[in-house]
């Protein structure tokens, strides 16, 4: 962790003593029928730098699927299986119970043990023991949340993931743009790049180790790829005109991007090992915002070839494209659901821009947000939530909505505008 910080400092050309503000998450719409769960404070946690049980409870609450009992309602503080009296817990109406222990192994070294119980059946569903260094405590807590979520819902969790986003603010009359990375609960924000010129369009490599993004630091658009651990970066594209909309292929070998070097915004595929470019679109229209289908066979993109911006799908080799969206005057900025069956997108109609999901087999469009200026949707790697950028109190904030639209939360900074969130892949 120390190593990360020092390499990041090299990249931050900025501001001595810059304090990184964390994203604050606020649940704005709960779900009726979230499943009650009891998460008991872990034994041995006195004096610990992190409260493991509190992190787990907050994760489960943020998913919208669970409703952790308030700590004051917990009727006991069992820390091992022998102390659990199921009949007592049944009275609380909680279906599941999480208990655990933290053992301090040495300086900054811990072992975390937890157990998940089905209260009504009176049996253990899961029990694991995980080692953790001090700087990995939050990560291990999120991993435990992932295990609990998967055991109880049948779907993988997405708590031990990260979000990259762009912040802009004005300090002493000068604009400042930052590319940041934070845990999916908003903690541990780290700045990857600071610039006086716009930064945009972060895109994760499939292994979650690198980010591609667009930087105007040379007073023109360039695409860079940056290693998020070492901070080292590589200039990938800096042609005349647009260098934008980078999107990694699922196998990590290619990148789709938008260039206007031939005079018009077109989509290209760049082979990352031999740097060969292949042009995939042609014609006078704006073709941009390519995203790969999870099976790696097709690319969905935005084009105004039909008059206004709409989504189209083509083969990764280019060729004819099929129009996917017909409802509304404006559909753009697609992101594939991890199962490839639906797309999140920006849907504009009547001057209102909202996040919607398009079911690809039926063509059904479901609106998930209220607008009026929502943009940049990005699926969680388990498909459960979509994070996007919106406005609140005249500032740019992030919001997340469950993919069924029933559960919502807002992620905001104490100052500055935050936008273009992209959820990392599963690690």
């Amino acid at each position, binding site marked *: 962790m120390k190593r990360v910080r020092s390499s990041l400092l090299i990249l931050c050309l900025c501001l001595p003593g810059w304090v990184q503000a964390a994203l604050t998450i606020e649940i704005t719409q709960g779900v009726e029928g979230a499943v009650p769960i009891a998460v008991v404070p872990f034994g041995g946690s006195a004096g610990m730098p992190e409260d493991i049980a509190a992190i787990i409870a907050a994760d489960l609450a943020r998913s919208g699927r669970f409703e952790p009992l308030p700590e004051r309602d917990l009727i006991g503080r069992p820390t091992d299986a022998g102390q659990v009296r199921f009949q007592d817990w049944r009275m609380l109406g909680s279906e599941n119970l999480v208990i655990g222990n933290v053992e301090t192994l040495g300086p900054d070294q811990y072992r975390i043990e937890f157990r998940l119980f089905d209260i009504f059946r009176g049996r253990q569903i899961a029990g694991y023991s995980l080692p953790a260094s001090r700087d990995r405590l939050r990560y291990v807590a999120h991993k435990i949340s992932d295990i609990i979520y998967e055991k109880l819902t049948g779907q993988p969790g997405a708590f031990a993931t990260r979000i990259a986003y762009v912040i802009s603010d004005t300090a002493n009359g000068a604009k400042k743009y930052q590319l940041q990375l934070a845990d999916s609960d908003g903690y541990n924000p780290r700045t990857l790049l600071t610039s006086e010129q716009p930064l945009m369009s972060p895109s994760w490599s499939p292994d979650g180790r690198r980010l591609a993004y667009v930087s105007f630091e040379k007073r023109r658009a360039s695409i860079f790829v940056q290693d998020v651990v070492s901070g080292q970066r590589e200039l990938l594209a800096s042609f005349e005109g*647009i260098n934008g909309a980078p999107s990694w292929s699922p196998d990590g070998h290619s990148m789709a991007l938008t260039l206007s070097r031939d005079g018009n915004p077109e989509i290209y595929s760049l082979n990352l090992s031999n740097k060969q470019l292949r042009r995939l679109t042609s014609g006078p229209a704006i073709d941009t915002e390519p995203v790969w289908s999870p099976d790696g066979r097709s690319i969905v993109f935005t084009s105004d070839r039909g008059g206004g911006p709409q989504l189209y799908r083509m083969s990764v080799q280019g060729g004819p494209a099929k129009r996917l969206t017909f409802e509304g005057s404006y559909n753009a900025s697609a992101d594939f659901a991890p199962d490839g069956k639906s797309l999140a997108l920006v849907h504009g109609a009547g001057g209102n821009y909202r996040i919607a999901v398009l079911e690809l087999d039926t063509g059904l469009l479901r609106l998930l947000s209220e607008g009026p*200026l929502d*943009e940049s949707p990005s699926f969680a790697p388990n498909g459960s939530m979509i994070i996007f950028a919106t406005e609140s109190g005249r500032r740019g904030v992030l919001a997340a909505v469950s993919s069924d639209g029933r559960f919502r939360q807002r992620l905001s900074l104490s100052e500055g505008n935050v936008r273009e969130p992209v959820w990392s892949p599963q690690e």
Partner: protein
Amino acid sequence: MKTLKLLAVALVIGWLSGCSSTGGKDGVSVEDRGTAAGAGSEGATSEGVSGYGDLSIEALNDPDSPLSQRVIYFAFDSSDIAEQDRALVAAHANFLAANPDVVVSLEGHTDERGAREYNIGLGDHRAQSVRRMLEVQGAAPAQISTVSYGEEKPAVEGHDESAWSMNRRVELVYVGY
């Protein structure tokens, strides 16, 4: 050298001003032999436009010159140059044609609505519209570069049409002036 070039440019412009002050609507072709300072053997070609006679470098900083207007505005999701802005673009084209050493950067912008990368494409289309019109009217391709900032650099902060209409624009940035 720069002074010499400016002198040559000023000489040509002096003549141009004379021509256009006659108010002729026909295109006026100007050949700069370039003997004074070798300002270019190709010479400059310009179509005279009535009323835009003063094409000196100084005109860039003259608030009464049309060249002081360096922003062209657009309708939502459109890259068409409005009828009323065509004379303005023509004035800049004439200026560039008369001053072949001057280069301009066309910065395309959009309002904040919709998708960011699509807006980069739209800003590019707007800049290309202005580029085409400048070139048709005599500016050389090498004098023009374009960059699209999409919605990333609004001229006016705000979330309503009054701000948006000021942000859908192409800015002509004369490099070095």
